[in-house]
């Protein structure tokens, strides 16, 4: 670990103009501290935000919910309001990591966790995300866990969060605060970016910008489901995950929202699939047709080719379950 300075903030206002380029915010530290030990992250200063008053879940007005950035994954997943009205979010959170990690990890930190690409973690191998311009080890290497949508020749890493997938499907919005005190809001869908030729940038956050919370709007009608497909039944990142909210009226899709995890550099909102389904009969054929519409541009890199049919089949299975067909799914 590279030596660094440490400063604990007592209030959001403390941020002021004091944030500089080499700073990183420290909350749960479940990912950042690990990456610092590997010297993949080498901040000059840690600004510990864990004492800030951002740990509340509050009524957000209009039937929504306001989630502080420091709310732990466990607290959010077990909140009675979330479990009742946003079960998709609760399910996604509980599908991630382990109880120990969820007790520590925060809402803001979960959004900002970094990829699990093998080559990102191996400092002896090239990685454009770690060292821009160095090359990509995964492109012609092991890429079983890598992206099939929105990739570039610079980077085919995925975003590992489950929670963010649910938030994207739920049209959640992040509240941001800049060092100068100005605030802005951004849909979670727009928070993360595709790698393009700057894979080192995971998000569109400006330097020093702090996530202070997440706004959940009132949930749309319909059944909410999260399905995570992975190699083992716990403590594994998604090969493919699907978050969906489907409302079927008189056998037809009245409204639908779909997001994929494990397929791209960001949680992937499947708007093409949503459009294809709107007003259509809720049938297996239409579910598969919608998946095909979304995956038309998908590209495999050898090891991850299977993710294309897997994403297609998983989406159809989730929509089938959401539409009410009976069936036991893999626990």
């Amino acid at each position: 670990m590279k030596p660094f300075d440490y400063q604990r903030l007592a209030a959001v206002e403390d941020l002021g103009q004091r944030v500089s380029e080499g700073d990183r915010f420290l909350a749960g530290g479940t990912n950042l501290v690990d990456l610092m030990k590997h010297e993949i992250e080498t901040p000059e200063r840690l600004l510990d935000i864990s004492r800030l008053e951002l740990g509340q879940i509050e009524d957000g007005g209009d039937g929504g919910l306001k989630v502080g950035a420091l709310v732990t994954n466990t607290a959010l997943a077990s909140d009675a309001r979330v479990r009742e009205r946003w079960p998709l979010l609760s399910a996604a959170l509980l599908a991630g990591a382990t109880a120990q990690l969820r007790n520590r990890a925060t809402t803001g930190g979960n959004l900002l966790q970094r990829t699990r690409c093998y080559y990102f973690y191996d400092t002896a191998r090239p990685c454009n995300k770690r060292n821009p311009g160095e090359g990509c080890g995964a492109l012609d290497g092991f890429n079983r866990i890598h992206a099939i949508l929105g990739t570039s020749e610079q980077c085919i890493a995925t975003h590992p969060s489950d929670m963010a997938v649910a938030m994207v499907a739920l049209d959640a919005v992040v509240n941001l605060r800049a060092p100068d005190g100005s605030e802005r809001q951004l849909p979670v869908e727009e928070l993360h970016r595709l790698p393009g030729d700057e894979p080192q940038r995971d998000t569109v956050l400006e330097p020093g910008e702090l996530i202070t919370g997440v706004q959940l709007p009132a949930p749309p009608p319909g059944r909410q489901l999260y399905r995570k497909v992975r190699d083992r039944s716990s403590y594994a990142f998604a090969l493919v995950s699907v978050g969906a909210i489907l409302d079927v009226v008189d056998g037809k899709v009245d409204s639908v929202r779909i997001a994929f995890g494990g397929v791209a550099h960001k949680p992937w909102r499947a708007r093409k699939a949503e459009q294809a389904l709107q007003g259509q009969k809720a049938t297996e054929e239409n579910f598969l047709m919608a998946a095909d519409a979304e995956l038309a541009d998908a590209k495999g890199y050898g090891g991850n080719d299977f993710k294309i049919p897997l994403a297609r089949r998983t989406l159809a299975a989730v929509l089938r379950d959401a539409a009410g067909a009976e069936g036991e799914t893999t626990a």
Partner: protein
Amino acid sequence: MKNPAAIGQPLDRVDGPLKVSGAATYAAEHQLDHAPLVGWIVEATIPAGRIKALDTGAAEKSAGVVAVLTHNNSPSQVPFGEPDDEGRFTQSRAMLGSDRVRYHGFPVALVIADTLANARHAAGLVEVSYDPAEAVTTTGSDADEVPDELDGGLDPDVTRGDFEQAYSESEVQLDVTYTTPNQASAAMEPHATIAEYDGNELWVYTSVQLIGPAVEVLANTLKLDPDKVRVLSPYIGGGFGSKLGLHNEAILACLGAMHLERPVKVVQHRRHVFHNAPHRGNSVQRIRLGASGDGKLKAIGHESYMPRARGYAFAEPTGASARTTYHADALLSRHRVKTVDMSLIDSCRAPGHSIGSLAFESAIDEMAYRCDMDPVAFRLVNMPDREPASGQPFSSHDLAECLREGAAKFGWDQRDPTPRSQERGRQLVGYGVASTIRMNILVKSTTRIRLSDDGSLIAWANMTDIGTGTYTILTQIAADILGLPAGKVSIELGDSAYPASCGSGGSFGAGSSGSALRDACMKLREKLVDIARKQESLKDADFDGASFEGGNLVLGDKKVPLAELVRQSGHDYLEVDGKVEPGEDHEKYSQHSYGAQFAEVTVDRDTGEVRVRRMLGVFSAGRILNRKTARSQLLGGMVWGISYALLEELMLDERCGAFVNRDFAEYHLAVNRDIPEVEIHFREQPDTHSNPLGSKGIGELSISGAGAAVANAIYHATGVRVRDFPITLDKLLEHLS
């Protein structure tokens, strides 16, 4: 009343309270008078070649750094692999001995600092440049070197009868090739050592399965007198073969301690362990089976192709299952290896049978279907009456009974024999079976016991307890034979100053060290009876019915406390040595433990996700020494088998000779949620030839066959035979439309 510590009783681990309270000090936790310095390994980033330049200047100036050891300044060592007439656990394991890079991850420097954080940071400042050499980092069926011998001293090639003719004349034939990946032992405790050197004696606190060879390898590597080397390894957090021989960080810690004459601790980081401790090589196994129309095997052929690490003579006997499980008129077993520039390849739990059974018991299952026979029935009609490879009689043979009993308990007859015929919602359901067999070995072992005049007994051996329960079963053996409560028995292990033992490995630990202890205890009984005979007050006692109970020698209605007998001997204590070594029984008989394992799996029709729903094993391993620790051993092997079938794979990036998934987030082991209800049954039948206790090896038994039972259940569920382990969902998906 039966002694609750008697042999076979499910006595709780005697070291359990120490372990759960943190009082059992593992290698890295050993407390010295002063905190040791801490070393961090700098790994080579090429698979083969030479170090061109090393710049340690920045690292040396970094905060807290005391020394940076490289091949330029480390103490003089015997070159790696010498002398070549020594075994692989005792020949030199020189580190930083020359500019040569042996494999990716090979240590090129050790940074020694006051704290872990300072050492680790400074390690990143060491600049190394290389002259890479041509490296062999691909493995596969092009292996064509014949190893001198396989692990366990087995011949690389065995032929019985005319295989080609028997195979070609068989009515039913099968010719399939299976592959298994590189795998890690993945012990919970990483490889760790603290070394202390005063200019004369070297003390090494480490985590190693075999203490005796550890002393020798240090003496041979570091040019020391073995009498000046003390190795201590009282508690070990799992080894599974990766800690049989002394590992890289131990040599490095010793080099640091000798260079500085200060204690140095080196703990391998989890990412280090994958390259700086041995792993299991990948295998290509071609299996040919020939049978008559009624399902009798005519020909068994097994050809194994595996890598062998350059300069390190370990070759895995992958054909072990094919050689020992079923009868056929003709047998062909052949092993070829390919020398590669990769980190050490060595034993991993049940070398040979574990991955051999994955392939072979899957192929046997294929053959059963091809013969249109029930997989249990097919196995039963092919039971051997002598060991197929050697032609020797079995000391005992209980595989058929394990299969029958297991099938009945599992409800095998509820199964629709047709593949892909059972569904539960969107889940395909399948049942699978596999035979389990693992050789029983006895290794020379000695011990010393002392009975004190307070009636307490202490036993010493340089044996190790790698988490298996050795402390506990040895306590029971002494308590049972001498009629003592468990609390009166102390077992002292893990110190090279104690009498030489077998160590832990090859499932021989309990039977061998236990038999030596039994020998000592039986001799002590004779000694105690002799003392009693000399007592005037006992001259009319019933010596014919002498027994030992409740801390007493019982002679009919007379009870004499053992403590009193010690006092009457005129000494403060009685000391007796015990030993065991293999004899005629091991030359005349082929000895094995047996089992049959059954699995029920579901496969998700949409996603291909496989989940094991229940598993059952029936095992026959002679006399069971402790039903609780034995069950744990078998349970652990079954869990590992599930893990081999479904998850474990070291991904070798052939471009650089490195494993890319070097952590437990991406090297997938089965986790709790992957493990269903597991039922374990013993068929307790003491083997009269195995050893004086009648026990047989158990540690490597259940991993041999467990994975194949799961794989065969997947076939039954889906009708898809995946011959490339592990069976991950991507290999099933396209077949599940």
